[in-house]
């Protein structure tokens, strides 16, 4: 399934690029992320608990950052597997300066397997969009929070 979209982060492109690759930040923003541990350069082991309505599932997987082209572009690859299936996301993030911050454009694909693919078909698109939205919304809050605290300091 193809996905694409755009979000505005209220920070400079340099900051946006750093934030988007900061494991601590990612751990807080990735929906359901419980732990994120570095296993190699630009590669992390992740445990997450996906919750959607009454559905929930534990996933064990990896987050990888590839093809970095500071500060304009990189690929974010997420994959995880659990009892209810597995999922993989591969997105190219492109950062462009914009009014009020940095435009983050993503373009990629999501692949889902197992029970969730076989019985949740009608909700995959909605769910993927919702998770991405949650990710950026959280990121925004985090960014705003850190901007506020750094402003104070």
């Amino acid at each position: 399934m193809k996905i694409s979209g755009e979000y505005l982060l209220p920070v400079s492109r340099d900051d946006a690029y750093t934030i988007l690759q900061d494991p601590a930040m990612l751990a807080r923003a990735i929906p359901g992320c419980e732990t994120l541990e570095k296993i190699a350069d630009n590669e992390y082991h992740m445990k997450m608990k996906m919750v959607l309505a009454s559905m929930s599932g534990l996933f064990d997987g990896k987050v990888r950052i590839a093809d970095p082209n500071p500060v304009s572009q990189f690929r974010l690859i997420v994959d995880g597997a659990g009892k209810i299936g597995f999922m993989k996301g591969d997105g190219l993030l492109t950062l462009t300066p914009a009014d009020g911050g940095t435009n983050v454009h993503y373009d990629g694909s999501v692949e889902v397997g197992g029970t969730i693919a076989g019985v949740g078909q009608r909700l995959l698109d909605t769910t993927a969009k919702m998770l991405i939205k949650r990710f950026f919304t959280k990121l925004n809050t985090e960014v705003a929070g850190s901007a506020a605290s750094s402003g104070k300091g």
Partner: protein
Amino acid sequence: MIPREFDYEAPTSLQETLQLIASGERKLLAGGMSLIPMMKLRLATPDSLVDLGRVPGLNHIVESSGTLQIGATATHHDIETFPLIRGRCPLLAEAASHIGDVQVRNRGTIGGSIAHADPAADYPAALLALEAQIRLVSASSDRIVPAVEFFLDAFTTALEPGEIVVEVLVPAEPGAEGYSYEKAPHPASGFAIVGVAARIQRSGGKISLARIGVTGLGARAFRAMEAERLLESGSSLDQAVATVGEGEDANSDLYASAEYRKHLARVRAKRALEVALRRAS
């Protein structure tokens, strides 16, 4: 297909229910029409269920000073067939008749359905068009939220942890109101590809009030306010429905692309309005 083990409690009062869900991670079981299939597929694995089925006084359907009060555990079948609703809020009865099938309507409840907030459920379109209100209660609070502020995103509502839907409040129809619910169902699931609920009031040959609720198109049901405004200011049906879904991020799945869904929402909106207009005159 076997659910995973869980603890089960069947409280017999609302107070007891609220106490139970205030402490710990317990999942409410109403009709179970969405939850139990998910549990059987082990996509949902709650540790503990609190069954609302034995709580008395939650399935009332009464009218009080122009408002219908519908208890959270009133079933879709109750709502579809109860004379008071058929007579005083036929749009809601019509929407209810489109949910699932008769066996599902016999078990499924209005509270359970709206709390679940499936993006393709039927009630939200009708409740938005009716400008319904939803009463939410927790151990420490009791509040009323308009439907338009209740449905936030796919499977996401204004419900706070520990809160439950206890009642849905809809205005009883003033009389010469036209209504219709037009649904394009998925041939397998029966869920709305799109569903449009319309309400029309006329005065002096003009549309004095238009309300349009749309479900299935995006992540949450919404009101087509621009179309409502255009209709109320004398624009043609075609002009009005052309704005339905504008700016909405439409869903896409195997059966219907976002583009087709948006188109279908407009066609169905027009048809719903045509029927509503006819009924209003």
